[in-house]
Structure formats: structure tokens, C-alpha cells
């Protein structure tokens, strides 16, 4: 359940940015989260609802861009959508692959008032 640490990180970023801009609270927050970022979305939801109470993110609308993980086969160069960090290359069946997308864990933008 490290998702709560992640939510605390998000709140921290939002608080600093909103204070810096001399604003009060967030109305929306946009995030990029990859399917291989190590985040369980249900756990994130659960942690979110508990943690944002009384912070700049309370009642803020969440927009999560889920980034589909992609891997590149080191053997044949084929790029494919992957479900795990160890999917076989669908073209040459090799496991020798590198993850090139899907590890994102990022706050992109906040709309604040």
C-alpha cells in the first residue's frame, strides 16, 4: 500500500505549486500514470479519498491519463504494447525487451483558484 505515499507526494507538489502561485485550492489536477508504474488504481482511489481531506486537493477533480506500456524488443527492434515487464516479443518470441513507456508517474497540470 505504497499508494498512500504516492498520494502524499502529489498533495505536496500541489500545495507547493498553489502556494507559489498565491492561489487557494485546486479545481482540477491532471496526472500521467503508466500501466507499469507500480500503482494499483483501486489502492490509489482508496488512499486519495482519505488523504486529500483538508488539503488544497479536497474536492479537486482528478484527470488521470493512463499511459499504455510499450516495450521494444532488443533482438528484432519491434515495438509492442505490453501488459507486464516480461512479455515476450510477439514477432520473434524473445524476452529480451526494454520498457519504453508505461513507467510514468507525473503531475502534469493543476487548475487552481
Amino acid at each position: 500500500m505504497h499508494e498512500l505515499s504516492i498520494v502524499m507526494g502529489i498533495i505536496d507538489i500541489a500545495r507547493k505549486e498553489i502556494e507559489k502561485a498565491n492561489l487557494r485550492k485546486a479545481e482540477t489536477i491532471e496526472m500521467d500514470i503508466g500501466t507499469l508504474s507500480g500503482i494499483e488504481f483501486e489502492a490509489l482511489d482508496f488512499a486519495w479519498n482519505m488523504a486529500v481531506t483538508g488539503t488544497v486537493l479536497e474536492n479537486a477533480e482528478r484527470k488521470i491519463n493512463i499511459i499504455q506500456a510499450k516495450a521494444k524488443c532488443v533482438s528484432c527492434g519491434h515495438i509492442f504494447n505490453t501488459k507486464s515487464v516480461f512479455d515476450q516479443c510477439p514477432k520473434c518470441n524473445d524476452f529480451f525487451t526494454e520498457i519504453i513507456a508505461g513507467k510514468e508517474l507525473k503531475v502534469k497540470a493543476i487548475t487552481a483558484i
Partner: protein
Amino acid sequence: MCTTCGCGQTDSILISKPPKVQTENLIIDNHHTHNHDHNHEHHHHDQQHGHAHDHHHHEKTVLEIEQDILNTNNLLAERNRGYFEAKNIFALNLVSSPGSGKTSLLERTLKDLSGEINFSVIEGDQQTFNDANRIQAIQIPVVQINTGQACHLDSDMVNKAVKELNPQENSILFIENVGNLVCPALFDLGENKRVVIISTTEGDDKPIKYPDMFLHSNICIINKIDLLPYVQFDVEKAKEYALRVNHHLEFFELSVTSGEGMDKWYEWLKKQIKK
């Protein structure tokens, strides 16, 4: 509420030397920042700057941020890494499920090599000084981090523990993470290498069941090989699974109890400190 695991506890994280030599406990409260009243803080902020009047902030402002959520942890991890580099400290982050033999591996390594290499240890557990006491019993400098309810170490805890420990130059620092094969994967501590340990009493499919930890590790130790005749653990299969996840992994097969395979591990450690 604890902000790390969501339980109802509000225990703080405790960093301290084992009781016999205990000096001062450091309390880290950064994991409880949600308890602060942010509106209140903001109000103060306004007053300090003489802006207590109407702000005209009713219009929406879009703040482009583009910041990695783990940025704070990663920046502090890099600071730790810089400190280790400057003092020529080779730091290893040991991760595994509970019971795979992290502390036993440490004990044996420290006993066998402490004549040749200077060591220090940071122990991470939810509770107790047990592991730190085991290390202290062999006269190795050690600091225990009790994470309370937290399921992993982070770079801030290690930063504070390192200050308490003050490890000497040209040494090896072992950081024994909380026994957990999931959560510690995401948190860089500033280590030079991450070592994941599995033992033959676990399933040989651990690497694909918990791939994140194997993906983020550099070294994989397969421990308890003396038990291979009695357990259904296929070493080659485990290695194949681990390589599917991370083909950069380097393996050591050993038994802390019988000593088999320990020599290769020691050779590798000695090479790292000479670099």
C-alpha cells in the same frame, strides 16, 4: 491516520542506535504532513506579505507542472548518492520478502569480511531493535530505522540514518530494507546497487509474481541452496524468470548456513570497494 499505509496509527518513524549505545532518537514527521491545516497556513502566508485583503483570485489559473511524483524522494536519493560517492562508500540496498535471510546474510558477511573491509549497517523494520542488536553483537556500527506502520524505507529516512551513523570513508554500507517484495521497489534510497534476495523455500516463480522488485534490482541472490534436495525449487527456472523481467541481473547462488557460494559474493564485494 498513518499516511504511508493508511492505518489508523499515527506512530512517527524512529531512527536510533540500538538501546545499549542509544544517543538521541530522531523523529521524522514528514509522513504526516496531511495533518497540517493548509488553509490556515495559507492565511498566515497572506498576512506575512500584507495581502489580507481581497485577492481577486476568482479566475481559474492553469499551472503547468510536469513533475515526477517521486521527485522529492529521487532528489534526496541523489544527495545520498553524492555523499556516498564523495566518501567512497559503496551502498547496497537489500530487499526481499520477510524470512529470505537478509539479516543472516549480513551477519555472516560482516563476520567473515570485517577484518578486510570496513562496514556499517542501516536496518529497516517496522518494529524492534532485534536486527540492529544482531549486527551490534558483531561490533559493526549500526542504526535501526523503525518505520512504525510504513512498508518501505525512503531516501529521507536513509538520509537521517546516515547522519546518525556517520559511516567511515572507503567502506561498504548495507541498507537492509523492510521485508516486503512490493513497496520498496519504487523508492530509490541513493544506493549504488540494489540486491534482491530470494530463498529456495519460496516459489521459483517469485520473479514473475513480483516483477517490479526484480526489474529495479541489479543483483539477485538465491539463498538457502543447501536446502535444494528437500524443496521443490528449480534454480534454473527461477533465474530464467528473473532474466525475463530484467536481463541485466547478476546472480549469486549461495547458502549462508553452509557457506557454499559465499566466496563469489565476497569476491564481488571486495571488487566494488576497490573501484
